[in-house]
């Protein structure tokens, strides 16, 4: 398993270094200029419908494209008092969806508490799962727990073949992921009429844009059912963001400028108008508030007068806050668009 950027003391462990590199991009115009041309600047929120909680950077994998630089050596973990502040804030709102992510969020000792509390408030809960965590010995009862609380699973599987998946996520990850999917299927996930939603996430294994979501979903369904008997509901195609470990890959492989040009050339104003930051609030492991998980990893908290910590949560101020943007945002506006819920257009 490859070490994280942090463990390797890579310069790109620093968000300042990443932002400097992104700001110096030669192959595309600044993102804010593109948004101005499209009549979308300044970009404002449209009302929060997704309360996304990133519970920390601990993960049992170190995927090569990870925008979090997550891994087994990471120590950042949301503590119970911060989790309690999240639930307290959530309770003051009617935000319908709680989206729990990481790292591998299930490894946080407060994960199950957050699920239970969010469900008790009547909210729909999403778990962003790397699949292999379901096979970790301490997590054997996880599929039953998730099913009992009707948690929607959004699980990463970049391709339906072992070579591509393992190239991105680590040796042997594909086989383990398929095993985990079969375990989820056993408790009813992905089965018609079960009410247990299992969605998969495709992201390109390299410096190219994702395919059409519908076409890829059909291919995934056919391949996974035929080869492994796995069923699921929907496939979300997500573009790799030019930050963190994927940024390192782009730079080291000589693809950085070409990839940024590709993203910028594919800028889609309709996708830009529907970006997820407009309806998402992202909470960091320490309670800091961000417009999205990508801004979180670049240490770009909410700005323009919006409260910056969950302890100061104020829905009225946050719903239509002005969004912080940068050149990395080209990743969400290319082609059919990209969000935590897949294509946006």
């Amino acid at each position, binding site marked *: 398993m490859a070490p994280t950027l942090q463990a390797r003391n890579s310069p790109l462990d620093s968000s300042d270094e990443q932002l400097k590199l992104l700001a110096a991009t030669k192959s595309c115009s600044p993102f804010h200029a593109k948004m101005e041309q499209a009549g979308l600047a300044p970009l404002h929120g449209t009302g929060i419908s997704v309360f996304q909680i990133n519970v920390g950077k601990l993960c049992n994998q170190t995927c090569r494209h990870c925008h979090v630089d997550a891994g087994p050596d990471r120590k950042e973990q949301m503590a119970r008092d911060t989790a309690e502040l999240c639930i307290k804030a959530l309770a003051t709102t009617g935000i319908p969806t709680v989206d729990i992510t990481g790292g591998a969020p299930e490894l946080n000792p407060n994960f199950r508490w957050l699920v239970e509390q969010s469900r008790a408030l009547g909210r729909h809960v999403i778990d962003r799962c790397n699949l292999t965590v379901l096979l970790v010995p301490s997590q054997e009862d996880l599929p039953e727990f998730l099913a009992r609380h009707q948690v929607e699973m959004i699980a990463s599987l970049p*391709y339906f*073949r072992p*070579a*591509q998946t393992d190239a991105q996520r680590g040796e042997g990850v594909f086989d383990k992921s398929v095993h985990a999917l079969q375990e989820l299927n056993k408790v009813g996930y992905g089965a018609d009429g079960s009410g247990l939603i299992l969605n998969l996430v495709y992201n*390109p294994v*390299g410096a*190219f*844009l*994702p*395919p*059409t979501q519908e*076409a*890829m979903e059909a*291919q995934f369904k056919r391949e996974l059912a035929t080869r492994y008997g796995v069923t699921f509901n929907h496939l979300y195609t997500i573009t790799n963001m030019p930050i963190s470990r994927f940024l390192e890959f782009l730079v080291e492989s000589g693809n950085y400028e070409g990839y940024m040009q590709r993203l910028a050339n594919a800028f889609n104003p309709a996708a830009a108008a529907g970006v997820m930051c407009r309806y998402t609030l992202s909470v960091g492991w320490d309670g800091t508030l961000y417009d999205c998980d990508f801004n979180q990893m670049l240490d770009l908290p909410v700005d323009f007068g919006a409260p910056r910590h969950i302890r100061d949560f104020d829905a009225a101020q946050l719903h239509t806050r002005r969004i912080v943007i940068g050149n990395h945002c080209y990743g969400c506006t290319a082609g059919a668009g990209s969000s935590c819920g897949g294509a946006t257009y």
Partner: protein
Amino acid sequence: MDTYYHPHDLGKFADMGKGNKNLWDKFMSYYTAVFAEAALTEREKALIALGVAHAVQCPYCIDAYSQACLEKGSNTEEMTEAVHVACAIRGGASLVHGVQMRNVVEKLSM
């Protein structure tokens, strides 16, 4: 090192419209229609294009359709097979002309 083909020249393809815009527009309209999803999927068409790109040995087309195949969801195994199809047809086209050779030899020989 200087080369005859430069990858960045692909970006100048539209300059061909400067000589005759009418013909360029007609070509682009036809080209776009050809690659649209119809009886064949866009993914299948990109794989065919990749094979043809190798048959005609166009470096621009190889660059463009290698990327397009990945972006339509194809994998290296499928793309390699597409190139082998092109190779087989090119090789087969040479070999089948061996029949002409044999016809000539047969006619000339005792």
